[in-house]
């Protein structure tokens, strides 16, 4: 009877450190771990599979070159990656708008889907989704709507105000309150 050995997966921060030193194997591991959630994100923002693929490629190339800029004292690796890929997708969305190829913005409210309906994911990821779902449900809907529009749609402050039919000052105040609440509720949980 042979013994089966389970090797624990290295933490994402450790993988990022290796990527910063040019370790393509670590990069491949990060890709395997992150690409489904990041591809889901850029697809949601861009609503176009081809554009989403390009955004995902841009994002991972950025990770390859800028892994050394990751600061573990500032955020978790996942947060760091989410913000990079979200910004890449938004930049691409705005660029398309400027070139007159605007695509329909699909995201207005976050999908409280809970555990993934897509590829299989670990218990830790599933738990994080539950934490986030609870956190988002803890802020008022009007604040959640303003933040979601800003995060997923790439609209400007004025465009958000126009979209939800509220004065600009009100929109800013909703975003500020909602972000403070989210930051508070999620402190040390992601």
């Amino acid at each position, binding site marked *: 009877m042979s013994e089966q050995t389970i090797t624990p997966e290295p933490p994402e921060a450790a993988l990022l450190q290796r990527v910063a030193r040019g370790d393509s194997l670590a*990069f491949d591991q990060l890709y395997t771990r992150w690409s489904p959630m990041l591809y889901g*994100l850029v697809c949601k923002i861009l609503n176009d599979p081809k554009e989403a*693929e390009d955004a*995902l*490629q841009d994002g991972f190339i950025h990770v390859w070159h800028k892994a050394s800029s990751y600061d573990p004292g500032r955020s978790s690796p996942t947060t760091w990656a989410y913000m990079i890929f979200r910004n890449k997708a938004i930049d691409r969305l705005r660029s398309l708008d400027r070139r007159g190829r605007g695509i329909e913005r699909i995201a207005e409210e976050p999908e*409280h*889907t809970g555990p*993934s309906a897509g590829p299989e994911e670990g218990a830790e990821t599933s738990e994080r989704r539950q934490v986030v779902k609870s956190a988002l449900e803890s802020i008022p809907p009007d604040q959640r709507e303003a933040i979601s529009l800003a995060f997923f749609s790439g609209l*400007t402050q004025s465009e958000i105000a126009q979209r939800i039919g509220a004065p600009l000052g009100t929109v800013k105040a909703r975003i500020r309150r909602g972000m403070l609440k989210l930051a508070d509720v999620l402190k040390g949980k992601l």
Partner: protein
Amino acid sequence: MIAEHTEEQASLYVLGLLDGHEARAFEAAVAADPELAALTASMETGAAALAWTVPPRDPPPALRARILDQINRGDDAPAAKVVPFPRSTPWLPWAIAACFAVMAAWLYYDTYHLHLLLDSFIYRDRRNQAELSHIQAQQLDLQNNLADTTTKLSAMTQQKAAAEAAVESLRNQVAALQTRDTLSQIKIATLASMLKNAPRAMAVVAWDPTAQRGVLQTLHMPPANANQDYQLWIIDPDYQAPVSAGVFDPTTRSNFQPLHPIAKADKFAVSLEKKGGSAEPQGPIVLVGE
């Protein structure tokens, strides 16, 4: 303590809602303020939380190979297209490049200078806002103190008025007591007639030993002869002889004051003396009393 405006800037920055200048100024502020840096980081976590709500999707398998191939080749940087210049003018590309370089340097310097100015204005604005908030807080404190002091002053004024009223009342009571005390010391003496021809004649003397003054009222006294006067005397054991209290007109009430200080007025007497009175009694005693 981070101002509301700065919190708002942080939330807008995290969501990519600040324009270029604002974002750079905010990044400079974050670099200089650890508290603001911590807030911004926590907001980034909050923003990234939204991404967790999106269901994952598997990307096309070919994409993985494309990306790995790109990083392994090291050619991810887009290659610039090279447009050859005609051979007849080999200096032209260099001249154009030099012009572009000069323009780029000038634009860079100008933009950099503008950014510095803008950052400076934004910092000044933040500082002014902080100072304004501080001054407003101080003003509020002073207003509260003033209101408190005014209330206390009003209460003290009322207390002072009440104390003055109490003092006035006490003064009145003391004055009344003093009056009562003075009256209690007044000695009243009735002088009876020693005259056979006027047995109903009499006099009443009110003597104030504190003031050393008195009042004399006579009744049924026969008039004195033209060359005579009635004279009042006070008998004090401290003196060998009666002390004169002066001559008087028997038809009216008379105030008198003795010639010498009187310690104890044992008796009062009236005699009939020569006109103008005498230093000691020489004429007949007409009235006497204790």
